[in-house]
């Protein structure tokens, strides 16, 4: 039986705390440069495109598409059987790593460019982890 306590738990830093605070509340936080409008991830208190420190945090739509993935076949204590390690492309542009959940873990079910949406799973009191599922899947 999967032991979810075996998932490595992220340790927030001052620069990423807003992201994890958002995740605790079920919100996917991204950042946007107020000077050049670049939307970026992972979190930084400056724009990686123009180095402006004038950046804002906003709620992403939580929607995106499946960009690429593998299906890990080796045993991991946190997972029952094979699981996807994926990269999704968010509607706002940035990409992030995730697992695709609430979906069969097969090449047939995991179709590149299929629409996905964020769901959150609490790991600890502080950390909820964003996962993605096929849009409209029942979590």
């Amino acid at each position: 039986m999967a032991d979810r306590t075996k998932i490595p738990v992220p340790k927030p830093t001052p620069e990423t705390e807003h992201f994890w605070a958002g995740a605790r509340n079920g919100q996917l936080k991204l950042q946007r440069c107020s000077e050049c409008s670049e939307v970026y991830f992972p979190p930084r208190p400056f724009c990686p495109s123009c180095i402006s420190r004038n950046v804002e945090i906003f709620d992403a739509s939580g929607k995106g598409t499946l960009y690429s993935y593998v299906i890990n076949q080796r045993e991991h204590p946190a997972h029952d059987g094979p699981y996807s390690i994926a990269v999704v492309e968010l509607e706002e542009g940035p990409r992030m790593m995730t697992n695709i959940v609430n979906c069969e873990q097969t090449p047939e079910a995991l179709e590149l460019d299929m629409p996905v949406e964020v769901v959150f799973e609490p790991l600890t009191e502080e950390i909820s982890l964003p996962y993605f599922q096929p849009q409209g899947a029942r979590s």
Partner: protein
Amino acid sequence: MKPGSIAIVGAAETTELGKIPDLAQIQLHADAAINAMNDAGLKPSDIDGVATAGESATGIAHYLGITPKWVDGTSVGGCSFMLHVRHAAAAINEGLCDTVLITHGESGRSQVGRGRFAPAMASLSGQFEAPYCSMGPPTTFTIPFLRYMKETGTTLEQLANVAVVQREWAAMNPRASFRDPLTVEDVMSARMIAYPFTKLECCLVTDGGGALILTRAERAKDFPNKPVYIIGTGESTETPMVSQMEDMTTSRAFRVSGAKAFTEAGISHADVDHLMIYDAFAHLPIYGLEDLGFCERGEAGAFMEERHTAPGGKLPLNTNGGGLSYMHSGMYGMYALQESVRQMRGIAPAQVDGAKISVCHGVGGMFAASGTVIMSNEQP
């Protein structure tokens, strides 16, 4: 760098490769270093520069009894040694030191005297990749390939063929870990590790090491073995997080490093007689052939199917059998460099007749970094 100003005058691997449970990691460095010093007819007192990765340069210098005037601990993963060659060439040309020893040793399989890698959970990779239970390179380095396949029409058969062709080269190499012939069917039906990659499309995990000695080209003729000149070098980085690659169908670090090396060397692709592309996984030669400019985008899989990189082909690639069949301790770049040196010296087990220019291209991390060294047995 100035093409041909620096030469490799000593080169050797560890006495054994494969499973070496009776040597700690630092001794693998030392075994290779001693073999390289013997190859060059040098003693530790003749060496005044040390570069290494995996162990500290301080530790290696002390262990070998070297008093360095210059050290380089650049550690960007498996291609660190390509960067060491580049940095050493610059340092020697600048007069910072005269004779540089570059060492690699890794107890990848036996894990004797080796520190453990674990991502710091406060790093960006720790926060935004590790929680998704990636289990090291086989499940992260491989993520880009499905995107590459979809955009280029490359097939799983073409991926498998990379391993098949490299096994043909390995069959000619008595030191290769695996030498039995393979078919595409064998590769595709092997145990799945991380779909779409089977075990035979993932590198070996072995113990070993290698070392190089570089000095000014005008001194090179005083050494016992044929000098191998450095004629072009490049390096770059992209991202420590594979999920943050700009485009998963091409490596920016490969493109930047490769283009810089070719420009320095002043050569065209048609001038290249021999090619090494670090193959931790079977897709890397495909990316390398394209990002170095040998093939157009999406054409490398077919290029290899047409046997251009196989024995008898026009562009012999990974002639030692590569990380897939020869050996792979974890930071394979040193072994790619050693094979380029052997080819330029004319002593490789699968020697390419008349080869004069070898391109040796490495990757570090999961498409995180890159280094390229172009060598020649003729001084430009």
